[in-house]
């Protein structure tokens, strides 16, 4: 009697186990086929996202500005104008609302720690071209709480306006004043017909700055200011010893802004 019961139990247990495993498999199959049909409906696609074939690439983008060739406000104006035009940078009467990507200032403000009373006349009063230094060690990126500003692999410090919450920590962190905050809707400072369609405007409440023309590099064009400078500004890969910028740096004495802060600017000035 006893043995009989055990035998029965084992039989039932075996069949149940078999049934369970088959059942689970079929259930899994149902899930799998649901996945496949989602595929066929186009939920998942085989589409691919790639870089533009013409994109210019570098390990670390850098710029060398030859101030010997950019002597007057008139020399700088076309560079500033073209940049502000293609990036839809607004103009406001009120200087507190000013937005700037690229601008000019005199030596004592640009290089405050290298100032002296008896500075050479040739640099004392000329305007210097200023833009975001695209630091190798960017303090703004460390300050940003949302990673709206970040450093690309090629060294460019970018703004993702979608993520910017307008806290302005980055502006406090930047030692160069390269960043501007949109206190008012920037479209009110743009001429309606003058909006450049290929680049978005910004909205009220975000911070903006120069992006080394990342959108142009990605489609194989040099930055707009470099193109407009007639060779007075060189642009290239700082890590490539054969690049134009490295050759210029080797042959000329250059300075960078507030070097002692350790931000490692990627913009060099030949003085």
């Amino acid at each position, binding site marked *: 009697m006893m043995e009989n019961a055990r035998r029965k139990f084992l039989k039932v247990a075996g069949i149940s186990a078999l049934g369970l495993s088959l059942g689970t498999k079929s259930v899994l199959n149902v899930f799998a086929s649901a996945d496949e049909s989602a595929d066929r*409906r*186009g*939920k998942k*696609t*085989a*589409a*691919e*996202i*790639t*870089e*533009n*074939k013409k*994109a210019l690439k570098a390990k670390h983008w850098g710029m060398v500005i030859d101030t010997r060739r950019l002597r007057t406000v008139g020399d700088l104006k076309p560079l500033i104008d073209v940049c502000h035009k293609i990036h839809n940078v607004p103009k406001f009467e009120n200087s507190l609302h000013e937005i700037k990507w690229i601008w000019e200032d005199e030596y004592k403000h640009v290089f405050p720690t290298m100032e002296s009373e008896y500075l050479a006349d040739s640099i004392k009063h000329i305007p210097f071209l200023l833009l975001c230094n695209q630091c190798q060690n960017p303090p703004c990126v460390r300050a940003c709480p949302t990673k709206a500003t*970040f450093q*690309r692999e090629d060294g460019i410090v*970018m703004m*993702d*306006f*979608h993520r910017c919450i307008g806290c302005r920590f980055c502006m406090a962190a930047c030692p160069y004043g390269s960043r501007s905050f949109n206190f008012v809707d920037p479209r009110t400072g743009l001429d309606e017909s003058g*909006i450049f*369609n*290929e680049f*978005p*405007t*910004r*909205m009220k409440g975000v911070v903006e700055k120069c992006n080394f023309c*990342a959108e142009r*590099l*990605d*489609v194989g064009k040099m930055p707009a200011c470099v193109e407009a400078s007639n060779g007075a500004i060189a642009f290239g890969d700082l890590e490539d010893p054969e690049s134009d910028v490295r050759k210029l740096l080797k042959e000329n004495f250059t300075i960078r802004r507030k070097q002692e802060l350790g931000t490692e600017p990627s913009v060099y000035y030949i003085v």
Partner: protein
Amino acid sequence: MNDKSRIIAGLIIFLIVVTFPFWYNMGKAAPAPETKLTDKAKQAKNCIQPTEYMRVGHMQLLNVWRNEVVRDGKRTYVNQSGKDFNMSLSNTCMDCHSNKAEFCDKCHDYTSTAPYCWDCHVYPKESK
């Protein structure tokens, strides 16, 4: 228990008031809008993905696009048939679909969504 009739009457009134919006609007649902295609979009026949997919998934697609473009600098989208597109709302999508009011806004209004794309991204001027 002497207030039974009053309580019941009160409950009925309460139910009527609470459900008022439902039966007042019964049968008055606004019809789902039909989007209008521009001539250019009609001629192209196919969008970058099948219409079905675009209708349901354009927002996810655009979300992927903006991250890839802004954060990774990847600006080219190659669809299954091997055709490539510049990943840009203003310059690719709205090049064909240049009728924002008829194409985008109609459905967005109907579903009560207010995407803030156009706070920054430029859309083509529509001729009336």
